[in-house]
């Protein structure tokens, strides 16, 4: 026991053995809910967008370096891997943006009813999908 709070987690099994009670939610046995899944995806997409800034930086540096370097980046972006990454980042951006607006509504004190955060949660997922597909349709038409 390192922490005095651990004293609250000491329990005995039915055969009398001392055990440390698991923390809840115990992720291996805890059924995922819409709210928790959306919440952790907000983090995933945020960190993912952070990695996306590497491509943005490369794109800008290449543009500032030479036409050849810029053509290399544009070529990578247009490759299957580049397009897949870009598609992922488009979704991550819209998801993080929409759910960020949802978070701001919470910060203002709105949307804490169970039915409300369930509805807004699905709205975020739907809006992110629709916006991603919309942007890609426009992008592919231009391309």
């Amino acid at each position, binding site marked *: 026991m390192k922490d005095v709070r651990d004293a609250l987690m000491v329990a005995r099994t039915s055969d009398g053995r001392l055990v440390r009670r698991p923390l809840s939610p115990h992720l291996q046995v805890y059924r995922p809910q819409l709210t928790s899944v959306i919440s952790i995806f907000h983090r995933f997409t945020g960190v993912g967008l952070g990695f996306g800034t590497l491509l943005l930086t490369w794109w800008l540096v290449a543009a500032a370096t030479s*036409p050849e370097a810029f053509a290399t980046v544009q070529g990578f972006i247009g490759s299957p891997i580049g397009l897949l990454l870009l598609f992922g980042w488009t979704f991550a951006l819209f998801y993080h943006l929409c759910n960020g607006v949802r978070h701001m509504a919470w910060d203002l004190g709105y949307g804490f009813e169970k039915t409300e955060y369930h509805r807004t949660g699905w709205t975020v997922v739907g809006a992110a999908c629709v916006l991603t597909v919309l942007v890609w349709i426009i992008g592919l038409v231009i391309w």
Partner: protein
Amino acid sequence: MSEANRPVQVDIMRSQLGRARGLGAAKSGAAQWWAQRVTAIALIPLSLWFVCAALRLVGASHAEMLAWIGAPIPVVLFIALVLANFYHLALGLQVVIEDYVHGESARLATLLVTKGVVFLLALTCLISILKLGL
């Protein structure tokens, strides 16, 4: 209920805010929280603008890219986007690191490295934009 068993009641004629004010975190602890929200609000229009700009630059040549970023408005908006984006990123990554990296020294080291990398990326983007746009 006998006199000895009555729960002790103490009236404190001071609000919780009044008690907390001036004590450590209650003084400036909300600054990062606010900065994260302010940059988030700024990033809504800026990132939507960037998506539109990226759509215009699909398959663009170097000359087209230079022509686009050479105008004043894209330069200003792009710099604003980079500043808000990397600030927001640094704050967000800090929260994630503080939640998941345990141990004082490991946490501090991860934070320093992460913030250093984010800062360098931001500087690199800014210098590139200035070189392209000025």
